[in-house]
């Protein structure tokens, strides 16, 4: 194994530095080194979206992104979304619309929705479905998720 790589990174608004093995993926770094286990690992091939985090504001699959590559960047994970005990409007909409069951996909959906609503403040249901096609939910049948995202957009637009 080659020697660890030094990285400086801002995670959920806090600047920090670490040493990571060259082959460590971002999801493992977040989960195993930082204890940020809200980011989930499932398909491991960039299909299911459970590991979605924001790097410099863009949604990426942390299962196929090397930890070393976040050097100098800003990472936002599900742990950075709520403000204390107060849920983000997207999170509150997921709760209100029963848009989760087992919850394993939920952090990824919330992160992808953050990215969607940053790009498009008034998405249609079709817009939502297409943007979130890279996130799989095996429990809900998706309709409650799509409704939650539309509702979240409304709440954020009027807040």
């Amino acid at each position, binding site marked *: 194994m080659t020697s660890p790589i030094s990285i400086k990174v801002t995670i959920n608004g806090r600047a920090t530095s670490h040493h990571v093995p060259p082959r460590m993926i971002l999801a493992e770094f977040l989960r195993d080194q930082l204890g940020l286990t809200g980011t*989930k690992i499932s398909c491991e091939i960039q299909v299911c979206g459970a590991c979605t985090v924001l790097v410099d504001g863009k949604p990426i699959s942390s299962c196929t992104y090397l930890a070393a590559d976040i050097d100098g960047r800003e990472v936002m994970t*599900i742990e950075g979304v709520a403000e204390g005990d107060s849920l983000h409007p997207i999170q509150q909409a997921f709760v209100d619309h029963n848009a989760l069951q087992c*919850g*394993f996909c939920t*952090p990824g959906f919330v992160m992808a929705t953050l990215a969607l609503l940053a790009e498009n403040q008034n998405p249609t249901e079709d817009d939502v479905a297409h943007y979130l096609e890279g996130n799989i939910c*095996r429990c809900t*049948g*998706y*309709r409650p998720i799509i409704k939650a995202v539309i509702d979240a957009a409304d709440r954020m637009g009027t807040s």
Partner: protein
Amino acid sequence: MTGMSEERVDAHAKVTGKALYALDLTVSGMLHGHLVRSTRAHATIRSIDVAAALATEGVVAAITADDLGDLFARYGHIVADHPILAIDKVRYYGEPVVLVVADNPYAAADGASHVRVRYADLPVMINPEDALAEGAERIHSEDYEYGDRSFEEAQSTLGDSNLAHVADLEWGDVDGAFASAPHVVESNVTYPMLYAYAMEPYNAVAWFDEGELEVVSTAQHPFQVRSDLARIFSLPLNQVRVRSPLLGGGYGSKSYTKVEPLAAVAAWITGRPVKVATDVDGAIHTTRADGATIRVRSAFADDGAILARDFDITFNTGAYADNGPLVLAKAVNRCYGPYLIPNVRVRGRAVFTNTVPTSSYRGFGAPQGNLAGELNLDQAAEKIGIDPAEIRRRNLVPPGGRHLPGKRGMDADLVGDLELVLDALGWKQDQKLPLRGTGFGCSASDAGAFPVSTATVRLFPDGSVTVLTGSTEMGQGSRTALAQIAARELGIKLDRVRVVQSDTAATPYERTTGASRTTTLTGLAVQRACRDALRKLEEIGAEKMDCTIEEVKTADGVVAGPQGELGYDEAIQWWFGGVQGEITGVGVVRRAGDLKELPPFWEIGMVGVTVTVDRDTGRPTVEHLVTVGDVGHAINPAMVEGQDLGAATQGLGAALFEELIYDGPQLVNPNLVDYRVPRTTDVPKRIDTIIVENADGVGPYGAKGSGEGSLNPIGGAVASAVARAIGVWPNELPLTPERVWRLMQTRQVSDIDS
């Protein structure tokens, strides 16, 4: 309160990423296991060389079956045929052979890549036809120990051939009925092998603490896993502690023991905590759902009355029994539909093959059999010239009727349910539109499994309450539904109730979390536990107020008697003295009273779809989906709808996309790119999830379960809808664009358009 869509009690934790799953657990000093899996589908093991693996930096152990010493090295709740690690031979590609254990996952994977296994190939049988051929190599020839000896629904035929299990059902004079019937219709269908894709793959952490085995895993049924582990290590049940935290999906695929023995033997050998986690490829190579070929013949009178049905079911059950025998038995019970039929014969066979072992998956044999039974009914309706809705109305079992002799009478109004589906669909038999078709289907499953459930309710001196249950929260919402039942029974606010689940050392016994049983059976146990606690509070009230217990009533958090009232908290504090003590209520459910008759309830599946088909590509699109959840009483209506839509969506996956495919000895699509599950863009444009509440179940307030029902008839409904759209009957799922396109090529395009 029940009947209201209360917010899920785990919702906040799940949207913030704070919810903890087994995969998130780290134990101090924990090692990581990585499996070396078989690269042969059927072979004897000539040698295993782990020297290079052991020389790899960070590797602590490389465990083979030879290292398991005096342990009972197999598991399986019906037949203990599944080796923890392959013993002498491998029976499918991907079977665990060596477990390499190391300081970190990287070292474990590196070590595993250095293990060398030499095999001597044996003939490979992927299909039941090959496995049952004359002179076929036997996949199993050992005489295994039986686990659950109470299981009698399917007979093992181990030792005779590769025929693994048989299950038969027969009543009436089937041959006589066919001989004299005016109409006989035969259908042959194929149902695909499926992968449940619970998004959290199988994983377990195990360690020994003063001789006690502790395991945290993704088990739906921790008490069943406890039994397997106790047998492996010859430990008493009280020295095996299995915990299931929140599960990242289950759908039956996490029923019974999976990777727990691997983690446990690694902990036993290394003396350290060991985590074994599969990836998706590993999960697919752990268990799958049965593929099936089914032949059905049905005899009809001129008016559409079913005179007789004859089914022949063959399951490709894979390399080991796992839960396959039970799934087979359920397919046999469920295939002919919720119809009153005077003459029925079902022959079910599960065949060992050199493929991934099969186990439970949502619906438990119902989707396979239902596809055959319902498609056959629709084909018969067309042949006889009768409305497919009318043929069902004519044959559906009425409330109280017994469509399976010796079992509980029908606890639902099936014709009423069907009318709701037809109304929502706007069904008109004579309406024919080009490339557009509507289909619907009915099913009733013997749900609830064997009724054994226990629950404990603890009332604390501050008025808060903890419910203890061995039922697992895997997304279905049991933590919320059981809290709602307790809150209603005790007359207190929902936020005063906490539900603690699935810890075999602390929570009381629960047989399983499956068969849509939790709300009904665990719910009853919780209800009884609450009533037991209230009776104790009434005794305290009578003592405090110096009156008879009959003069004391409990309601709305208050113990009321002739001389005033006191809160539960005050009653407990008075009785024990000071702010201390607690009242414990115990609730037990067993096969007695209302639950003497099996099944505990019939789980109804009534669905409909409207499908359009693309003329050029054959791609079917489900435009409209209707589900009916006949649940007696919806404890939480939003969660019932969630179960129904979720189940139907998984059914749509099997109907349209999903299929594990063997090409030669190995799977070609053990990943989420090539095994396609439904996505956001597949959601039907219109969805109607209808709930029926007739309070006709045995559960709390007349409740019955949901969870599987809306999956079971989806395949047949979609197949019939596609048939009506293109004018050709499909005989296999999934209906991929290519399959539909090929069916369309068998007709003139002008015929399809007309």
